[in-house]
């Protein structure tokens, strides 16, 4: 028989007209289950009004991002044994820096609009993807293939970024990483979007975006690279080589 733990799931609740508060749900869980399973159990067996976002259950849709014990996690791939223990409390809260729609569900609209603004690509040619050990030159028959972008637009980086917490106009890690992925040489119109007060220069090198990213996008490294691209574009403009 599989090992079972008794935990208290402490869920952030916030409905229209109500003050935010926490509800506790005591339940038995398998430590090898994921945090989303505990949230679903709270909804299925304790309170059908618990509101949360989820879809794919395998870290592709990016819908189930939450703060687990204060840290941003994609709950469908966060093992219970990694974030709690037998008899302990597990706290789940909505992502920061997004309007709360209800309980754990947040409105991602503003974030998606920023991703659109930088022309974030959902898919990209495999020859342009950052992959391990790429061939020196892509054979023409392989260059036609496309693959999904690494970023699943889960918003964890937006929630973890302390600069984002104080500056709603800041583009934020994921949109800046998407801009870097496009490249200023390929999309020169991005220069005015990212080379501004609330663009690439607003980042304060906290690296929390990279720490919480479940998809290995490494936004912090991409932001630093985007700065290099911006400086390069400025120099080219200065010497009339645009």
């Amino acid at each position, binding site marked *: 028989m599989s090992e079972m733990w008794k935990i208290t799931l402490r869920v952030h609740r916030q409905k229209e007209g109500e003050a935010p508060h926490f509800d506790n749900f005591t339940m038995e869980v398998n430590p090898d289950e994921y945090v989303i399973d505990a949230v679903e159990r709270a909804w299925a067996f304790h309170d059908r009004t618990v509101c949360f976002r989820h879809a794919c259950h395998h870290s592709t849709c990016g819908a189930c991002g939450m703060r687990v014990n204060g840290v941003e996690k994609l709950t469908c791939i966060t093992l219970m044994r990694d974030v709690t223990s037998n008899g302990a409390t597990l706290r789940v809260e909505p992502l920061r820096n997004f309007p709360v729609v209800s309980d754990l569900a947040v409105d991602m609209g503003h974030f998606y609009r920023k991703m659109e603004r930088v022309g974030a690509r959902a898919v990209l040619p495999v020859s342009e993807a950052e992959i391990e050990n790429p061939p020196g030159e892509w054979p023409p028959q392989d260059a036609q293939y496309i693959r999904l972008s690494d970023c699943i637009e889960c918003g964890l980086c937006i929630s973890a970024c302390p600069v984002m917490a*104080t500056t709603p106009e800041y583009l934020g890690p994921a949109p800046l990483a998407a801009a870097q992925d496009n490249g200023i040489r390929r999309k020169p119109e991005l220069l005015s979007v990212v080379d501004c007060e609330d663009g690439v220069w607003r980042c*304060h090198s906290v690296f929390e975006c990279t720490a919480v990213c479940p998809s290995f996008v490494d936004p*912090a490294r991409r932001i630093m690279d985007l700065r290099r691209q911006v400086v390069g574009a400025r120099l080219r403009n200065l010497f009339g080589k645009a």
Partner: protein
Amino acid sequence: MDITRNQPSARRFWSWFIPFRRDIGSWAFALNRATAIGLTIYLFLHLIILGKLAQGPGAYDQFLELTENPFIKFGEWLVVAAAILHGLNGIRIILTTLGVGITRQKQLFFGLMAIALVVILIFTARMY
């Protein structure tokens, strides 16, 4: 519905200083904010003290006597420690911005803070 509570706002700057449970980058960020605020406050105090010169040598000498006070001396120690921590942490930020050590920023932080600790200890031994 109070949806504004969870949204970005300049009033939430206090969250910069709560790095608990976060990665090392947040601790480095909080340290840089705290030392920057401390050094800015010191700058104003320094200018006020320099203003004593305009009131004549007597007023300035009277202030200098105060510097022997252990609390003022500790304040001076704090200023030097903050400057060392802030400066070395700043070097980490400059390096990573230039693309150096981005994947090793944690080690870079620990290394530079170890140097800061040694320098602060040497300064403390000389000061007291």
